[in-house]
């Protein structure tokens, strides 16, 4: 589980046109893609958006799990005018105030997309950086113009990564890099911290989902909390009444393919006229696949079509997953 705040710089340097059509527009466009990928890879994680302009930081969206809401907010943001100065300290403080209360078994992160070369802070920014490091919040910065010393310092202190983009495709690569969860966050490698990973109680919420409408206004569809029967229009969410974490089964299932990846296929050369090139054989079910299907099953599908079609192999998989 991750809790991530994305801070978007909306200060006057963001109206530069070195990224087409201008920096802010290009950034929000890439962030839209980022949000979708983020929720695809981290299904029950949360994301929030902050923006900073006029020396102030403001919250655009609360931490939440609904990609559509964030994307709408990003689209609104992209048409705003860029003005004033960027404030690193205000952004960090605002993010910290929200992330501080998040449970420690989830990783807490801040991603700053910064176009400005300066920061305008009310106090000592190093104090904020220290506070971030103490709270174990990982801060990463993607710079749009040039390397800034204070950002580098921030990333070093909090264990994040600092990168400056070369061009738009490099920008995209850097964002995609942020999509995958950090491989070993500090809390997970330290054995003393390990006890923090307690079982989180979750209600797999259910029932009555017709068409999920927008979050505002009345709607006839929604999800009920199994414990207190409160109704919510989007998942995942923590129940306001009984503080049960509500998720739906597909959210959890989305990441299961990481747990049981299909075995690699064996490459075999054949003289079959029908197939050109090598044939790939699954060792379990002994079915043959072409190169395209091999790539497709391992990168996208994550389950072997052959193994899924044999009952005897089903049971093997079921038992391995139980033990």
């Amino acid at each position, binding site marked *: 589980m991750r809790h991530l705040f994305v801070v978007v710089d909306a200060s006057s340097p963001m109206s530069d046109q070195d990224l087409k059509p201008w920096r802010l527009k290009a950034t929000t466009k890439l962030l839209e893609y980022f949000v979708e990928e983020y929720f695809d890879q981290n299904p029950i994680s949360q994301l929030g958006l902050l923006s900073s302009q006029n020396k102030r930081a403001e919250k655009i969206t609360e931490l939440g799990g609904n990609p559509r809401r964030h994307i709408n907010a990003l689209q609104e943001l992209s048409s705003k005018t860029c003005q004033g100065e960027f404030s690193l300290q205000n952004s960090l403080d605002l993010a910290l105030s929200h992330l501080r209360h998040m449970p420690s078994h989830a990783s807490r992160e801040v991603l700053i997309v910064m176009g400005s070369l300066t920061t305008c802070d009310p106090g000592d920014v190093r104090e904020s950086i220290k506070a971030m490091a103490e709270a174990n919040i990982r801060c990463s910065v993607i710079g749009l113009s040039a390397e800034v010393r204070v950002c580098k310092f921030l990333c070093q202190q909090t264990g994040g990564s600092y990168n400056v983009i070369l061009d738009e495709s490099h920008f995209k690569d850097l964002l995609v890099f942020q999509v995958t969860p950090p491989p070993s966050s500090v809390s997970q490698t330290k054995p003393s911290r390990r006890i923090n990973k*307690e079982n989180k109680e*979750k209600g797999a919420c*259910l029932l009555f989902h017709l068409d999920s409408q927008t979050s505002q206004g009345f709607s006839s569809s929604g999800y009920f909390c199994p414990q207190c029967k409160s109704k919510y229009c989007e998942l995942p969410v923590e129940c306001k009444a009984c503080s049960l974490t509500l998720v739906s089964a597909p959210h959890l299932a989305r990441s299961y393919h990481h747990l049981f990846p299909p075995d690699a296929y064996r490459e075999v050369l054949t003289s079959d006229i029908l197939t050109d090139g090598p044939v790939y054989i699954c060792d379990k079910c002994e079915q043959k696949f072409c190169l395209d*299907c091999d790539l497709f099953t391992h990168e*996208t599908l994550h389950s072997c079509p052959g193994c899924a079609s044999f009952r005897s192999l*089903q049971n093997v*998989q079921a038992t391995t997953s139980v033990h």
Partner: protein
Amino acid sequence: MADAGEKGGSSLLIIILDTNPVWWGRKKVSDEQFSLSHCVDCITVLANSHLMLAHKNKLAVIAAHTDSSVFLYPQYPGKQTAAAKLPDDGQYEVFGQVEGQLRAQLKMLIMQDKEEIDEMYDVPERPSDSLIAGAMAVALCYAHRLEKECPIGEAMSTRLLVIKGSEDCPAQYMNFMNAVFTSQKQNIIIDACILDKDSGLLQQACDITGGMYLKIPQLQGLLQYLMWVFLPDPSTRVKMALPPRAQVDYRAACFCHRNLIDIGYVCSVCLSIYCSFSPICSTCQTTFKILGPQKLKRKKKS
């Protein structure tokens, strides 16, 4: 009607037919009116109508059997096809081909089963669920291949239609969900046409991919339902009055007993679901703090 055709693209319809011998056998015993051959007739009509809508439309039919997934149409090119005789009544050749191959392949499938049973002295209990997820995985691979073969600049929209009578196979949950998320990623819609009991998994699949889930209220009218609900492509469906969406059961199955549960415990590392607290996650071997029981107490109070 052929919206994809107007845009210059083709539309691929993959029908997954559940051919579970146990379920069809029971159906035959209990209900004389409805049999597999009747169902195949309906599917043939649906398939032919789909092919008729646009010249570029493509079709595949896959049988999900108890222990295999078999392409009913198109046939594996290496196999000897029965001498394709030209229809004498001026019927479009492809229609004749579809019907002939469907029947021939199904017949082969059933004969294989029969031989198997004849060979054995004590016939083991046949499982009453089919391996739908396997057939779906095969279908997705097939769709992926056709999409690659598709000439550049041409769009192809794909749809999966699952016609299912037998129960869900709980052991296939993982494979099934993988297939569903893949189709969501590839923009493939999954439709479900349920002949018997409601299927929670397929409900979720249809809801996630934006397809239609329909439990046929009257099997006699199967053809009508197929033509009305499942023939039009998604862009056309918006304009039609279709049966309302059913409630979706979004409960998850626990890993330990495979029961559907409302409230359970989730491992915070690997997201495995358990119906009761266990100190060690059996999937990823994580040990949890003994804070668990305290938490339990608090839950009871609240």
